[in-house]
C-alpha cells in the first residue's frame, strides 16, 4: 500500500523527468506505452498504473538508501 506522501514524492520525481521519457510494460494493461504526462495523470488518478509507477520509484529510493548504507558500513 503506497501512502499519499509517497505518491507525492514519486509525482515530483516523474515531473522532473525528460519530456521524451516513456514508460511501457509487458503487462496486459500497460501495453501501449505512456508519456510523462500520461504517467502523471495516472498518479493523480491513483489508479493501478499510477500507484505501480509510484511504487517502482519508491523501491528505487529504498535501493539507493540500502546501497548508501552498505557503502558507509564498508568504509567504516
Amino acid at each position, binding site marked *: 500500500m503506497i501512502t499519499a506522501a509517497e505518491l507525492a514524492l514519486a509525482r515530483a*520525481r516523474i515531473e522532473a523527468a525528460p519530456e521524451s521519457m516513456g514508460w*511501457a*510494460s*509487458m503487462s496486459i494493461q*500497460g501495453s501501449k*506505452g505512456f508519456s510523462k504526462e500520461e504517467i502523471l495523470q495516472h498518479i493523480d488518478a491513483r489508479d493501478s498504473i499510477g500507484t505501480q509507477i509510484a511504487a517502482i520509484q519508491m523501491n528505487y529510493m529504498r535501493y539507493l538508501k540500502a546501497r548508501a548504507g552498505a557503502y558507509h558500513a564498508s568504509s567504516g
Partner: protein
Amino acid sequence: MPVLDRAVATTIKRTSAPLATEYQHTWVSPAIAEAVTYGIDVTHLFEDDATRVNLEAVLSSEDPAFVWLNDHGASNQVRGYYAVNILVSKGASHYADNADILAGRVCYAFACSSSKTLGPDAIAKDCACYLGYNEDFWFSYNEDVYNQYLWLYEPIEYLLTDTWAQSFFNAANQIPISLMQGKTTGVAFNDSQSVFQAAIDYWSESGAYEAPYILANLVFDKQHQSLLGDEYATVVSSPLPPPTCPDYTIQGDCTANGCYWWGDACHTIPEPPPHEPVQFGAGLLMILLLCGGIYGYMGR
C-alpha cells in the same frame, strides 16, 4: 522426453496497443536468429502464427525442449496474437488450463507477472524449469525515437537505436542466449542478472538526465526476475561444462562462485602475497663490472 537442440519462440509486432510488443519483437528477433549459430532449430511463431493452437501443434509435432514466449502477460496467462491467451493456468477467465504442455521442458516467458501463478502451476505439472517475472516488466523508451519510427515511417529496426530501451532487452535476452549456448538454467539466470547489474552500474555512473528513471525500472525488473524448478536443466545436447574460475569476467560472479578476483581477472587461488623486493643492486653491479672487464680485455 522433449527433443534437445529444438525450440519454439513467439513474437508479436502489432496488437491492439502495439508499442511494447513492437519494441520486444524488434529486440528479441535478432536473438532468435542467433539460435542457428548455436545449432538450435527454432520454430518462430510470428504475429498471426503466434496462437495457442499453433503453439500446441508445434509442441506436439516437434516436441522442443525449449519454449520461449514473448508477449504481454499477467499472473496466470501469457498472450499471443491479438491479445488471445497462448498459455494459461487456472482461473484465467474462460480459457482452459494448458500449463501441462510445458511438462519436461524449459520455458522462458518474457512477459509480465506469469511467474506468480502460471509458473508454479507449470512446475506442479512437471515443467522442468520456468523462467520469467513475478511482477510487471517495465521498460523505459525514448518517445522521440518511437515517434520517428511511427510518424516518419522509419523501418522498425530504427527502434534498435533507442539506447534507453537497450539495457532492458539485452538483460532479458540473456536468458535464452545463455541457454542456447549450452548453459544450465541456473547459470543462464545468473548471466541475465549480471547483465541487469552491469546496466545498473552503467546508468548509475552515467550522470545522464534520464538515468534515474531508467534505473528505477531496471532495479525493479532485476528484483522480480525469477527461476522456478530445476536450475541444472539444459536445452542443448552438448551442454557446456560448468564454468571454471577463469570463465568469470565479472567480479561479483567470480567471488560468488568461490573464486578469487585479483589483477582484473578471476582465479582459482587467492592473490599471492607481494614479493619481498629482490636485492639486485650488489649482484647487478658485480655482473656489470665483470662484463666491463671482459669487454675491456677483449678490446685490447
